């Protein structure tokens, strides 16, 4: 008995050590570069500080009070929400349609698979600059097309009324391929026999899509929606490069506002409050969405 217990205990401690050894590196990295910085951001949000001087004044919740009434921040939040909603509305159906086409077309459509995915391989910066010049009112192609039809110069990025929508379309251009591949992967999980059986039973391709494939793709669609929501709310690179939130905050996002507050006006305390506020908003929206999506299943 005693010997057996000791052996079990040794096995247990051995297992505990092994678990700790295997998990330690990942948890350490996450702790240092994700969790500690989040806590640090919340702490810094209580100070007024320019980032380099030693003058760091504790001001309590003043930054948070300012944040609650900061119309630029809430305007940026509204823009983020618009990006989120339109990204889902535009990217999900097109991504699904393209994936459906590629799935049915098979190997023949290999060129499409390459060309349609290219936007996803470009860095956001590259896309940002590409479109900045492509949409340039004098040399860009939109102006070129407009002139070909007898129109005048078109300045989509310089106009507060069109800038955000233009950004949203470019973001859709960039990310639709990602969801396309995501749904292709979803299709890959559906056995080919199911399609064959449906066809034998006299179903049309349309019946197959609406009544069989779509319900089976539901888990993929759900996680794609969550990914899209989180991605839209923390969006930064492309807008930063293309418009930097302008003109007059018309395309400002929470992340671009935070970056400019920190590294252009050197208000580190307030920038931390923006970042922390952003973190809270994204977490709440992500959790609520996941709860809603999972409840519908029952």
């Amino acid at each position, binding site marked *: 008995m005693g010997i057996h217990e000791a052996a079990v205990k040794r096995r247990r401690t051995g297992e505990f050590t092994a678990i700790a050894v295997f998990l330690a590196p990942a948890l350490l990295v996450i702790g240092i570069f994700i969790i500690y910085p989040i806590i640090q951001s919340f702490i810094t949000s209580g100070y007024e500080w320019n980032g380099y001087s030693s003058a760091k004044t504790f001001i309590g919740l003043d930054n948070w009070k300012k944040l609650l009434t900061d119309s630029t921040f809430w305007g940026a939040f509204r823009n983020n929400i618009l990006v989120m909603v339109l990204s889902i509305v535009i990217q999900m159906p*097109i991504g699904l349609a393209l994936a459906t086409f590629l799935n049915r077309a098979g190997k023949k459509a290999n060129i499409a698979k390459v060309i349609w995915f290219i936007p996803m391989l470009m860095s*956001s910066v590259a896309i940002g600059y590409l479109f900045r010049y492509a949409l340039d009112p004098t040399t860009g192609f939109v102006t070129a097309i407009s002139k070909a039809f007898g129109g005048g110069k078109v300045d989509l990025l310089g106009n507060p009324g069109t800038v955000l929508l233009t950004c949203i379309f470019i973001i859709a251009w960039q990310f639709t391929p990602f969801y396309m591949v995501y749904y292709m992967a979803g299709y890959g999980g559906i056995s080919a026999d199911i399609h064959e059986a449906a066809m034998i039973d006299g179903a049309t391709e349309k019946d197959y899509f609406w009544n069989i494939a779509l319900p089976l793709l539901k*888990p993929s669609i759900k996680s794609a929606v969550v990914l899209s929501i989180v991605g839209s709310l923390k969006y*930064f690179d492309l807008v930063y490069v293309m418009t930097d939130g302008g003109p007059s905050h018309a395309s400002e996002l929470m992340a671009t506002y935070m970056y400019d507050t920190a590294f252009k006006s050197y208000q580190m305390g307030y920038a931390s409050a923006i970042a*922390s506020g952003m973190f809270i908003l994204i977490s709440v929206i992500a959790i609520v969405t996941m709860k809603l999506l999972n409840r519908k299943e029952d």
Partner: protein
Amino acid sequence: MTKTKKRFKPSSVITAILVAFWFVVCLIPFVFMIMCTLKNQKQLMKFGVFSLPKSFDLSNYVEVFTGNIWHYFLNSVIVMAVTLVILLLFSAFAAYPLSRWKFKLNKPIYALVVACMSVPIHVTLLPIFMMAVGTGLYDSIWALVGPYVAFNLPISVFILVTFMASIPKELEEAADIDGCGRYGRFWKIMLPLSKPGLSTLVIYDGVNIWNEFSFALTLTQTSANRTLPLAVNEFQGQYSMNIPMIMTVLFVSILPMIIVYIFTKDKLIEGMMAGAVKG
């Protein structure tokens, strides 16, 4: 959607239109970019974007390749390689117990790692910037490795856990009987069998790291220490309004990833399948 059963298929017409439309949408910006690279600024201003270049003028490419783009390229390669090695090793380590062993903290730890996927990098940007300054790593490519590993870790662990869970338990049990310890089983059984999952991550994370912008912008300063996405930024300053030159830099910087994708596209999809279906 109401189902109308006609012999004439409007759906195939719609499909054809959509397919053609998306080809145009994807290609126009690229055509614009490539056309620009073959012209000089004067030709672009005088004849417009879509006029065919008079001759195939490759001088923009010559200028880019003889310029200082190589050190950006080298920096990107080093950061990507170092990050990937650490990232894949740490992810595989973590995924092993999380996918195979029962212990009390398994679920909470896994949930924590997955939750990190939705953390916006901007909430960590300032503190990480401070840390980089504090440790003296600021303005060197090594400052990028830590954050890159951390922010690619959650999705990598997630995909690898799903992947490892599908490896038959019997293989491990056989090794256990043969006297392989817990660590031996990881190195000799799990790691080699996870190769398809790992190679997906090389592509998926590789593209992310290659294109990363926010940390690179914040944590490095001098051009000698910057990565390729920032080269565009700097050339932009150097050539101000020389659009053909900037387009050439853009095209050169995205070319490696396009080439990699052409050869590995099926792998990428295969690997996403592991994450997508159950996610």
